[in-house]
Structures are given as structure tokens and as C-alpha cells.
């Protein structure tokens, strides 16, 4: 199974600004002084060896869109945040407009950051394509249709040329979608949201974003751990610190890196992927959260090691 992250930011796109790019550039140039970087190959090698991730790259600013590839011919996506535009351009570049494709999309919920990419989802404009959108959320069809509507967007939904289908799902019931078995789970989030367990090619990925997990709710923790059980990767909403999520941001519907580690440890999951990054956090901050999460996993480990990564726009995970 291969997982490609096209959008990893929470709530709102958060593009890297010119000043931040310049800071990275100045820092890299100072570090490279005297290194004799007179070819692109030497410069690439220097970036790999001498610069940390935030010094040489960015976690990115697109909102949620994750591609799961379990070997099926059709595409499978989770959510249609602004990252869906990047995905659609890459898919179009790969196939061209003359070769129709089928795109399956699991929608966690309909808050704007999870559907805002659909009006710019290029395959929707191309005749012959099929786009099948699935969700346990009761209003997903109307929310997606209504985005393509005046005065907010100039192209009406009815003007889209692809065949677009909406398929309601029931939580806790397995479905066969794009070569995978997909099961939804209701999550704690204002206006409802749903996580998905995706099993395919002998691997299991959990997509759980916009989900609040409360440490005192033992029954829900155990239900969640059962849902995560044995997963190869858990893509987890770690937007806030634990202190924030149980104090000033309690009931805001998001979770923390600490809860991610604890739930993955309970579930015997193999890898935790920090996701839905707080838009206020810059690259250094997110890298710091990753470092701390690795340390928390280390000091709380009682069984198998839990691998921890932080998702970034463009990350490809081989699961």
C-alpha cells in the first residue's frame, strides 16, 4: 500500500510566505558558505546531509487530501481539501484528458477545509471521468453540490462534465471500494465527522481526522483502539497540544500527539502519522512537535516500537 499526502494542514490553507522562504534561503546560504556547491548534485547532497527538514523544505499548506493506493486501477482519496487540486493536476498530467479514470473519494465530514478543493478538482470538468464520493456524513452530497453554486463559485455543479455519484455509507459496516475494504467510524467533532479504516493489499491504514479523543472516556478509547487495531499506519489529527485539547480548546473537535501515541500503543498500531497540522504552526514548530512525539513514544513504550512521522504535502509512505 502506498499513501501520498496532497494536503496535510488543518482548518485553513497555510501557504509558506515569501519572508519564510527567504529566511530558509539565508540560513541555507550561510550554512553552505565554503562548501563549494557548484553543481545541482552537490547542492542536493548538501541539503540531504547538512540541512534539517524545516531548513530545506516545508510541511506545506494545503488542507486535507490523502491518496491511498492498494494496487487498484481506480484512484482512492480521503477528503477533498485544497490538496485535491494538486492531486488532480498530477493525475491529469499522468493520464492526459483523453483517458477517462474513476476516482473514489471518502469524505470525513463537510467542514470547508475538507471539501474546498472540489471546485478545482480538474477531473470533474472532463467528460468520461467517473467521480464517486462516499461518506457516512448525512449532508455530504448537499454540501459538495452547494459549493459549486453562485455567488460563491461561477461553475454550477450541473455544469460539471464528469459522471459524479454520491454514495452514502453507514458507520461500522464494511464496503468494498477501489480494491479496499472500507469501514467508517463516528468521531467526536462539531457537526459530525467520520474516520475510515482502509484495508487493502494486506495492509491497513486508518484515516482519522477532525476527531477529539478524551482521555477520561475509557469506553471510547477502547472502541477507538479496536478500530485502529493492528493498523500499519494511523493518520491522526494532532492539531493541538494535550493541554490545549483538554482546556481552552476542549470540545473544539481535535486531538493531540499524546493521544495519538496512547491510542496507537493501545491498538498495537505500527506507525503514527501526525496530520491536520495547526495552521498557526510554522515548519520549526511542527518539526519540534514531531521530535517531542518521538520522545514521548520512547519513554512510554512498553511493547513494540511505534514509528512516528509527521505528514507533509508531497510525502509518500510505503506501508
Amino acid at each position, binding site marked *: 500500500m502506498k499513501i501520498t499526502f496532497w494536503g496535510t494542514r488543518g482548518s485553513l490553507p497555510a501557504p509558506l510566505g515569501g519572508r519564510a522562504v527567504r529566511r530558509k534561503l539565508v540560513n541555507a546560504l550561510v550554512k553552505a558558505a565554503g562548501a563549494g556547491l557548484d553543481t545541482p548534485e552537490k547542492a542536493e547532497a548538501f541539503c540531504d546531509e547538512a540541512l534539517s527538514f524545516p531548513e530545506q523544505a516545508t510541511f506545506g499548506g494545503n488542507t486535507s487530501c490523502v491518496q491511498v493506493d492498494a494496487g487498484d486501477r481506480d484512484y482512492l482519496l480521503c477528503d477533498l481539501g485544497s490538496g485535491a487540486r494538486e492531486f488532480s493536476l498530477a493525475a491529469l498530467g499522468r493520464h492526459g484528458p483523453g483517458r477517462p479514470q474513476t476516482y473514489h473519494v471518502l469524505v470525513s465530514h463537510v467542514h470547508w477545509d475538507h471539501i474546498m478543493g472540489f471546485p478545482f478538482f480538474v477531473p470533474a470538468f472532463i467528460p468520461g471521468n467517473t467521480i464517486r464520493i462516499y461518506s457516512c456524513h448525512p449532508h455530504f452530497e448537499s454540501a459538495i453540490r452547494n459549493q459549486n453554486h453562485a455567488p460563491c463559485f461561477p461553475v454550477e455543479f450541473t455544469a460539471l462534465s464528469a459522471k459524479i455519484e454520491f454514495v452514502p455509507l453507514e458507520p461500522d459496516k464494511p464496503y468494498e471500494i477501489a480494491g479496499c475494504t472500507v469501514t467508517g467510524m463516528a468521531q467526536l467533532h462539531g457537526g459530525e465527522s467520520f474516520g475510515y479504516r482502509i484495508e487493502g493489499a494486506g495492509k491497513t491504514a486508518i484515516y482519522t481526522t477532525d476527531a477529539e479523543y478524551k*482521555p477520561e472516556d475509557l469506553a471510547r478509547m477502547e472502541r477507538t483502539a479496536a478500530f485502529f487495531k493492528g493498523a500499519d499506519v494511523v493518520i491522526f489529527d494532532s492539531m493541538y497540544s494535550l493541554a490545549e485539547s483538554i482546556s481552552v480548546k476542549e470540545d473544539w473537535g481535535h486531538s493531540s500527539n499524546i493521544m495519538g501515541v496512547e491510542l496507537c500503543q493501545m491498538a498495537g498500531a505500527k506507525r503514527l502519522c501526525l496530520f491536520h497540522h495547526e495552521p498557526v504552526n510554522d515548519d520549526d514548530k511542527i518539526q519540534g512537535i514531531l521530535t517531542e512525539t518521538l520522545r514521548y513514544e520512547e*519513554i512510554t513504550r512498553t511493547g513494540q516500537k511505534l514509528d512516528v512521522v509527521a505528514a507533509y504535502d508531497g510525502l509518500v509512505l510505503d506501508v
Partner: protein
Amino acid sequence: MAFGESTVGGAAIVKAGGRIDMSNAEAFRETLVSAVASARNAVIVDMDGVDYISSAGLRALMIAFRAAKSANKAFAVAALRPLVLEIFTISRFNLVFPLYGGVREALYAVGAPTSGGPA
């Protein structure tokens, strides 16, 4: 693990030990909230014997802290071992409570010193 309680001046001191996790966080919460109710002006949580605290234990501290705040009583956490201090830092609970190196220092800070200055 067990939770002990004592009183110094107007401060209730809750002594915790071992691991605080999902299995005993509720008992920890009850002990803390009861200490907040009975304390005259402050609660100090002595964490010297604590090896580990999970999210559930931290939440118990948060609830007691809120109860103390509403009752206009001071709340402080003292004597964290290095590993537990790391957990407080990673979870950002170090930004929530006043943390002190030892109980005497905490007592002094909340205005209920035993005798002399902070240890």
C-alpha cells in the same frame, strides 16, 4: 499506587506515587478534588514518587486545577522527576500549572511556608 494527604498551614498536600494512568486516574481525580474542597487556601501535588503520568492523569490534574481556580484557592505541582517533567513539557502542561522543584518551595510560593525559605 496510593495517594496520601496531609495538611501544612492552609495547604492540603496530595502525595502521589507510581504510575498514574487510565487504571487509577479516576481515583487520583477524586483525591485531588476532595483535597481542593477541604484545603483552606491551597493544594500542592507532591509528584516526587510518580514514575509516569498518562493523558488521563494529566486531565485529573486539569480538573482539580479548575476546581481550585473557581474556589479561589492556589494549586501547584511540585517535585516532578525528570521523565515526568518531560511529559509535562511535551503535553504543554508545564504552561498550565505553576511547577516547583519541591514541596517546601511550593508551600512558600503559595504563602503557606513550613519555616524558613524555599528548599
